[in-house]
């Protein structure tokens, strides 16, 4: 039982773009810690030996203290600690600021397994195949308790919290198999909730993907749920569905709310609006949507989110909706997310409630009018179904 089954390892692999810098900070911290500890230990040992008691009743001369020394050994450590703080903060920003051009993989944790779905639809459990040299963003949630996804060789980790989406990203720099752990205690088989990340050459990855041809991409799957759950009857994608705000082109933008606030449309907001629609009502609409709590699984939710995101191809460019809306144009019941949303007025029409400038009121009024006008499904549906591909052309109209 005691036989060693593997050679001893003292350092983890450096297999991602950030692992080198994390290690540099680690060794800097150890360097400073070693110097400080040795300094105290050597000085103390020196005093302890040099000033050992030589007579049982001797009383040494008393020394009160020194303001200078106190200041010195408060300020110098603090300055050193500021370097720890600054460097750590910089790395933290790198880890949790998501790159725009990442490949998104959705992750659902559940007792006691990890489920992954690739953008092309392939699913895996407890194994994650990724290409080398490609930024990968993991969008994660859980079906039950809190988990945490950790890949030590990449130096990344994030809790996975029920009811929320969390994200981390990495770019692998070395092919190989790396441990994948759950690091937040999640119940009986916590230590079994892990597996491996397999980093592959690009072409191998393509080959691996093609070995799983009948996969349906999350966007297509999401569109399926969008139709089957009846979302489409109100939120007809690409069009103002009538009683409900359109979903095209909204991702990443600010939506004004009925209670006067604003919300940025992100994964978490979409999720919340599906499960708890009354939480944040978009201004100009009423609280009529039923909850889908219990009717959709976490994976279906992630697919719905993927689909809704796909209706906003411009989202990643950080569109701002500050230009005035062109109101009174009921014909544009069709949304038109575009690649250049800021400059294209049509893109604003796709989001009638977005304006935040003084014209907002007008825009809002127009929005509801337009919504009524577009209530007949016939006018919006055909366009909606052609959502993605048609949009660039609309710019030219």
């Amino acid at each position, binding site marked *: *039982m*005691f036989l*060693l*089954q*593997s050679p*001893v*390892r*003292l350092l*983890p692999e450096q297999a991602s773009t950030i692992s080198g810098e*994390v290690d540099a*900070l*680690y060794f800097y*911290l150890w360097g400073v*810690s070693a110097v400080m*500890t040795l300094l*105290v*230990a050597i000085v*103390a040992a020196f005093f302890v030996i040099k*000033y*050992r008691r030589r007579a049982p*009743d001797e*009383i*040494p*001369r*008393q*020394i*009160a*203290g020194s303001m200078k020394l106190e200041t010195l*050994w*408060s300020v110098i*450590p*603090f300055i050193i600690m500021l370097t*720890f*703080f600054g*460097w*750590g*903060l910089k790395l*933290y920003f*790198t880890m949790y*600021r998501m790159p725009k051009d990442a490949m998104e993989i959705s992750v659902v944790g559940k007792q006691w397994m990890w489920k992954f779905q690739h953008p092309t639809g392939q699913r895996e459990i407890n194994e994650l195949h990724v290409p080398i040299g490609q930024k990968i963003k993991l969008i994660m949630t859980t079906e*039950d*308790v*809190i988990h*945490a996804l*950790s890949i030590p060789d990449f130096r*990344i*980790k*994030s809790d996975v*919290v*029920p009811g*929320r989406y*969390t994200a981390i990203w990495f770019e692998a720099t070395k092919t190989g198999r790396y*441990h994948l752990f*759950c*690091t937040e*205690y999640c*119940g*009986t088989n*916590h*230590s079994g909730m892990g597996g491996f990340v397999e980093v592959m050459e690009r072409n191998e990855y393509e080959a691996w993907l093609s070995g799983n041809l009948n996969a349906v991409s999350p966007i297509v799957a999401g569109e399926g749920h969008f139709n089957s759950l009846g979302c489409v009857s109100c939120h007809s994608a690409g069009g103002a569905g009538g009683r409900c705000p359109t979903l095209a082109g909204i991702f990443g933008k600010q939506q004004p709310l009925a209670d006067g606030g604003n919300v940025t449309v992100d994964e978490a907001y979409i999720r919340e609006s599906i499960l708890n629609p009354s939480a944040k009502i978009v201004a100009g609409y009423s609280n009529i949507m039923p909850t889908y709590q219990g009717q959709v699984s976490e994976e279906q939710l992630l697919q719905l989110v993927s689909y809704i995101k796909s209706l906003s191809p411009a989202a990643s460019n950080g569109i701002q909706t500050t230009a005035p809306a062109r109101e009174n144009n009921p014909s544009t019941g069709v949304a038109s997310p575009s690649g250049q949303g800021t400059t294209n007025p049509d893109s604003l029409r796709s989001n009638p409630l977005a304006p935040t400038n003084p014209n907002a009121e007008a825009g809002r009024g127009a929005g509801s009018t337009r919504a009524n006008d577009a209530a007949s499904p016939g006018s919006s549906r055909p366009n909606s179904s052609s959502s993605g591909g048609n949009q660039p052309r609309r710019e030219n109209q």
Partner: protein
Amino acid sequence: MSSINSPFDKPFEQPVDSPGGRMRPVPAERNYLNADYSVRSWLLTKDHKRIALLYLFSVSFFFFIGSIYAMLIRLELLTPKGDLVQAATYNKLFTHHGIIMIFLFLIPSIPAILGNFLVPLMIGAKDLAFPKINLLSWYLYMIGAVIVSSAIMIGGVDTGWYFYVPYSSNFSNTYVTLAGLGIFVLGFSSILTGLNFIVTTHTMRAPGMTWFRLPLFIWSHYATSLIMLLGTPVIAITLLLLVFERTFHVGIFDPTIGGDPVLFQHLFWFYSHPAVYIMLLPGMAIISEIIATFSRKNIFGYKFVAFSSIAIAVFGFLVWGHHLFSSSQSVFAGMIFSFISFAVAVPSAIKVFNWTATLFRGSISYDTPMLYALGYIGLFAIGGLTGLFLASLGMDVHLTDTYFVVAHFHYVMVGGTLLAYLGGIHYWWPKITGRLYPEGWGRFSALIVFVGFNLTFFPQFLLGFLGMPRRYHAYPPEYQVLNVLSSAGASILAIGFTIPLIYLLWSLRYGPKATDDPWMATGLEWRTSSPPPTENFVETPIVTWEAYEFAPQETMKVVGKLTPDDKPDRSSYSGN
């Protein structure tokens, strides 16, 4: 300046010939231990010293229970596969180890045993301000301990000591409610102790015992009491909410019924990080006393050390978010919490530097308490510095929830607090029991503890950096070597803890009788007999000297005459 380098003139052993001389307290035969032998006189005692002993027995008992759990954990981790116990059992082992060590041992250990015994003695009072409440706090501790133990015995808890939701509220089928209620009751014991110390320090100081003449032990315990009083209610509320959610399915923390699981983490750590300082500050209290006594020097920068305790208590309330750097807390919040966490490290560093500086030109002896104190400084330095790794945001992401964290807090809690506790027990053993422990065995076991401790926990830093997660029943085989080292260290550590248990018990009967002041220390607790009489001092002491004023006997009178130079603090005359 005649005092410079002048030897003690038979220090503190003066007969009662001069009116200002040391008072011989009553006939030496009568003391708090032999005042009454009946069981009733122990169970209904209002004497803080007897209550301290009640705590000593019960807390030590739970320390050994908690250690057994630790040994089982280390045995399981000898091999990568989970082969000794089942996963569900292993999860209960570390949960029970954590709950027992934190709530039943570390939090009450130093304050409730040594603090209870020494706070009144050190400030020259007859007892704590509320002796009955003091007894009540021991009963609450016992009730809480019985509830927690029964939860463990009828099936146990498997949530980890931190009870994270929604696992603890909706998923775990173990006795979470019962354990939560037990900890809830234990919290009140802690609150009452804190309250008692604060009121006692304010109102019961002997004449002449001004705030800046207080031993640093008192300053640290005052700071600890502030945290106990202000922080503990939060964990009580949090656990009640958890029990409420678990029992009545009201959505507070569980997202499927409208709650927020991260809210629980905020509430939990709002207490549990300051609780780290409840465990740490009393250890620092002991170290200040030991360093001063065994180097015969006043603590370098007394006021800095005193106020650093208060600073730690105050800043300690503002850093809880550093437990949530990777749990979807906002990046901005992470930044603030990281910064304050570095700030709270400064007062701890100040203490370490001041203790080291105190040794300069001292008269240093190598008695057991001093060995523990020197070990403490080294291990606490490592524990504190590795805390900076975890306060550093980008570093924490990789290290959090790994064995690095386990190693870090064991360096602080075991290398720090537990070593201080053992040092303190040895230091005040003659005062508490009236007997001397065998010095050779003491030094030997201190060495064993130091070696065993480092062997147990240093490999865990390396394991953590490799990525081995906490609370893992089975692990990848490449982590085995370091785990074997750690388990080997744990068995050495176990020997190091068993030896003192044996010789301390032995000394109760066979140890040489202790003098009133075997160390030639300065505190008021040494100015009365060993063991002290029930009323502590025959005559209320009047303090005319500064803290840690090592000086020839003439100036060390228990009942001095206050001169205008003493500028006594009016509040210290409560009795007059």
